[in-house]
């Protein structure tokens, strides 16, 4: 009784078989029903996310947030959806119609497709693809493509600048993201996400590889385009970036896609490093796994919001420097160290393996902090030095002209 989803699926399958459908068609129908069920569930969660986001940001900014419609303003997101649906749909003059209308669909669809490989419980998983981790990266590529298309087709210079920034950011941050994704793959010996969750016993991978978890989390926030990496939108400089020209539900789909993407990435990081659906009793009662999964996913989602509303936007050269000169080398070092230690500790008892890995990570963190401290010292010295005294470049020219 702890596994209602599998129970309902079995019941439905037997019912369809009882109607005389061939097993082949039953499989196809069950797949379609499964896809529809998870998509609808995720989109309903998405509507709730609008409320969560607004409420949390309000608390961070010492406000109340939506509180008029329904208890705690819970009906507010529904009103938002209705507002978006009845707004006028504008296509700017000179826009490339088809290329302009595709990106909102891509933005939401790629995020929904991610849920195909994220395990909600040991038995509730779309598909345990044997290249699950790479599948996630591939879908990220489509997300980038959607943003470029939106920026170009809008026929707006701000949208194009936003798209350019997005490409620079997403293509760069994909590198440390992929490298840090390889660490759980290496530890579990598989790329299937559900298999990785199964492999996280007795400890979660965040204990074995905390640095990789942190790198993945940071690069995932950059991939999401959330603050402090929200240069692609940068309301104060380029108004809204790539989605400046989109109105009504087309904008709504970008917005929904962004919120859902944040939760999806949180779920992914939770699955890879925080044990996904793992928790007391989850193996025996899979429905508990769903609860644990969403608890962990929402905790990380809250952390993303916390970072978003606490940090100012990072400048573009700092953003790229941070990626290429800090995250990428660090991720490479962590991957190499993890690979070597994984082989060295292979014959050791479990607890020694975990402690060894954790110590290695702590050493890496300590060395990183030392190097950063030295760099900061040099940088501070350079900044503190008195600059050259301002003087006219060519005094003779300036005197004759005046």
């Amino acid at each position, binding site marked *: 009784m702890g596994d209602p989803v599998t129970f309902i699926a079995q019941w439905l399958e037997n019912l369809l078989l009882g109607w005389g459908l061939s097993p082949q068609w039953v499989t196809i129908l069950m797949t379609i029903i499964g896809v529809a069920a998870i998509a609808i569930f995720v989109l309903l969660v998405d509507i709730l996310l609008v409320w969560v986001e607004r409420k949390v940001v309000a608390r961070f900014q010492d406000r109340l947030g939506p509180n008029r419609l329904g208890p705690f303003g819970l009906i507010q997101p529904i009103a938002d959806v209705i507002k978006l649906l009845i707004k006028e749909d504008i296509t700017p003059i000179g826009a*490339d119609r088809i*290329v302009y209308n595709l990106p909102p669909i891509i933005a939401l669809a790629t995020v929904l497709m991610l849920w195909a490989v994220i395990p909600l419980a040991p038995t509730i998983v779309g598909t345990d*693809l*044997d*290249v699950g981790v*790479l*599948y996630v*990266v*591939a879908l*990220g*590529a*489509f997300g*980038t*493509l959607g943003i*470029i*298309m939106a920026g*170009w087709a809008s026929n707006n210079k701000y949208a*194009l600048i936003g*798209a*350019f920034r997005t*490409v620079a950011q997403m*293509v760069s941050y*994909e590198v440390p993201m992929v490298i840090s994704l390889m660490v759980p793959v290496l530890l579990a010996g598989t*790329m299937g996400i559900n298999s990785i969750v199964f492999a996280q016993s007795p400890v979660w991978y965040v204990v074995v590889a905390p640095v990789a978890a942190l790198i993945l989390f940071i690069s995932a926030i950059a991939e999401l385009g959330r603050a402090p990496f929200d240069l692609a939108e940068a309301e104060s400089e380029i108004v809204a970036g790539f989605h400046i020209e989109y109105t009504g539900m087309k904008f709504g789909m970008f917005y929904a896609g962004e919120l859902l993407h944040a939760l999806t990435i949180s779920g992914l990081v939770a699955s890879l490093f925080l044990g996904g659906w793992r928790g007391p009793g989850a193996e025996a009662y899979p429905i508990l796994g769903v609860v644990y999964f969403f608890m962990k996913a929402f905790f990380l989602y809250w952390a993303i919001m916390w970072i978003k509303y606490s940090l100012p936007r990072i400048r573009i050269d700092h953003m790229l420097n941070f990626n290429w000169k800090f995250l990428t080398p660090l991720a490479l070092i962590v991957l190499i160290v993890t690979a070597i230690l994984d082989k060295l500790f292979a014959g050791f008892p479990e607890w020694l393996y975990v402690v060894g890995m954790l110590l290695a990570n702590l050493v890496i963190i300590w060395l990183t902090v030392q190097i950063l401290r030295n760099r900061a010292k040099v940088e501070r010295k350079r900044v503190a030095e008195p600059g050259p005294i301002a003087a006219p470049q060519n005094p003779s020219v300036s005197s004759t002209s005046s």
Partner: protein
Amino acid sequence: MSGLQIIFILVAALTLGAGLLAVTVRNLVHAALWLILALFGVAIFFVLLNAGFLAVAQVVVYIGAIAILMIFAIMLTQQVASYKGTQLNANWIWSAFIAVVVFAGLAWILSSWSGFSTLPPEMSARADPLRQLGSALVSPTAYVIPFEVASVLLLAALIGAIIIAWDRK
């Protein structure tokens, strides 16, 4: 005709059509987008052949990196949408000739190939092609030398890029 064959024909038509449009449309950004569709069609072929890893790698490398860089470069060029000149240059006759010769050669080679009538071998459920590919890439009896040569080449390109961008003070 099985369902798989119908899907294959549809995807093949999509890939070829997209490829043709990629070289014929006048708008460069549209050409790049059609190219992406053609590359995606190839990824679907890999899926149909049970090669999930190659399909995903195709998307990551070709669509995620190469195509996006191409679009980036195209967006920085002038007149992407309003170019009115000819789409052929003086050498079109020679390239057409070479294309025909290569196509005829391939057709001639493939006409004597027995692969068209053989059925794909049934994959056992426990087969792990990804693991086999991984060990083949580092096994001394298989592909370790090409793999390492490719790695060194990429590393050299990486270092070269750093040297070019190095700000010598």
